[in-house]
């Protein structure tokens, strides 16, 4: 396969989407001081699915992504990714499981001291042990995919927010993750730059097998790409279903309230 992400142009969106369970959270609890952000949460995501987490701020959506990326640890519970335990686990186990997961941040978090190409090749070379020229060839393909083929040598500060976020997406994909975590990736962008980034993600969702977990306030985007929408409130999933059901015919009063406030 020549392209970097698991590209499959023949694919019917209905195929390949039932590769079994990829992510499982069991009875996961996370507290910050007295504040219980996640309260004995259970949920799982099947391989290849695109799952969107919606809900009021402070409801624990971002915390789930941060737990999966091991940026924070739960207080209780068990997290499994692709059959391997992520929590509780040793540092060595965590490093192995983390290879399967990529994340794109609200604030991009590109390394400002490195040119764009190096931002993308650093981890494939040092973590996956890819030869430098191979990593660079892949990085160029990815930059082409995100529409920034001419920005290899630019530094992040020379790019717009939208361009930085595209590089961040390319950087995450360069590690060939099975799961891509998207944490409010357009919230820090100027309004005119949002559409471009969302279109890119729609493309990736349509043409790859990557499992996606999105926290977003872009409800149209959520409706377009999701196989499943989870509505969060106070650290619990209060409603779950297809985007058609959640957006058109929500059952829970809190979901209705939330959607009427944001739509």
């Amino acid at each position, binding site marked *: 396969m020549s392209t970097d992400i698991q590209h499959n142009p023949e694919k019917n969106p209905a195929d390949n989407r039932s590769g079994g369970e990829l992510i499982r959270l069991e009875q996961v609890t996370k507290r910050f001081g007295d504040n219980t952000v996640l309260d004995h949460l259970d949920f799982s995501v099947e391989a290849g699915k695109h799952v969107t987490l919606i809900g009021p701020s402070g409801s624990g959506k971002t915390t789930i992504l941060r737990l999966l990326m091991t940026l924070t640890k739960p207080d209780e519970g068990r997290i499994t990714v692709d059959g391997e335990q992520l929590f509780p686990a040793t540092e060595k186990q965590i490093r192995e499981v983390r290879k399967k997961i990529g994340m794109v*941040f609200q604030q991009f978090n590109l390394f400002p001291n490195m040119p764009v190409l190096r931002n993308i090749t*650093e981890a494939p070379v040092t973590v996956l042990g890819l030869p430098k020229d191979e990593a660079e060839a892949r990085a160029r393909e990815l930059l082409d995919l995100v529409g920034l083929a001419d920005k290899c040598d630019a530094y992040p500060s020379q790019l717009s927010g939208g361009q930085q976020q595209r590089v961040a997406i390319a950087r995450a994909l360069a590690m060939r993750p099975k799961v891509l975590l998207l944490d409010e990736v357009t919230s820090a962008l100027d309004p005119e730059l949002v559409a471009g980034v969302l279109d890119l993600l729609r493309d990736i969702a349509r043409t790859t097998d990557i499992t996606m977990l999105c926290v977003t306030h872009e409800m149209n985007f959520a409706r377009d790409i999701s196989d499943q929408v989870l509505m969060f409130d106070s650290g619990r999933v209060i409603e779950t279903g297809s985007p058609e059901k959640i957006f058109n015919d929500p059952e829970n009063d809190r979901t209705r309230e939330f959607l009427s406030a944001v739509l």
Partner: protein
Amino acid sequence: MKWDWQAVADFMPQFWDGLLVTLQALALGSVISFALGLVWALLMRAPSRWVTWPVGVVTEFVRNTPLLVQLFFLFYVLPEWGITFSALTTGVFAIGLHYSTYTMQVYRAGIEAVPVGQWEAATALNLPVARTWRVVILPQAIRRVVPALGNYVIAMLKDTPLLMAITVLDMLGQARLFSQENFQFTEPLTVIGVAFILISYLASLLLRALERRLVH
């Protein structure tokens, strides 16, 4: 009191010797303080209190005792334990050590100023911790602290005359020697005063150029 150009000319050979010693002390003292300060700063971030506590105590002690006392201690007390270095070596080490306890605080501030998102991105990419320090955190931290480190270079320059106290013939040492031999104080002291200003000025120009190069 009258200005005697002949005295200036007579002082010049000694002045060059003294200048060389001052510049050596400054350059080596800077290198030591920059390197050692970074080591202290990194050790202070160790997870174990068995590391941070002794490092904290030692550096606090060095920072809060006078450089002159440290010079005397290293020069006169260490030889009693069989540890002997030349006066200049002792002086360079003392200056470097003393100022490393200041530069460590500069580094600490620089490291803390690197946004937490940089650590998180490195974790998300599974970069090993040592690699994260080397290619992500330190390059950004050090870039931020170059101006502050530069200020300590100037401060160190102004402290090099203390080396005279342990028999090092820096610029001031040479000026004093010349004065005592010739009973002419004005000319040599004026010459080295001007030299100190020029060195400070050149050093600040150099640092500003470095700062510009480091900013993207």
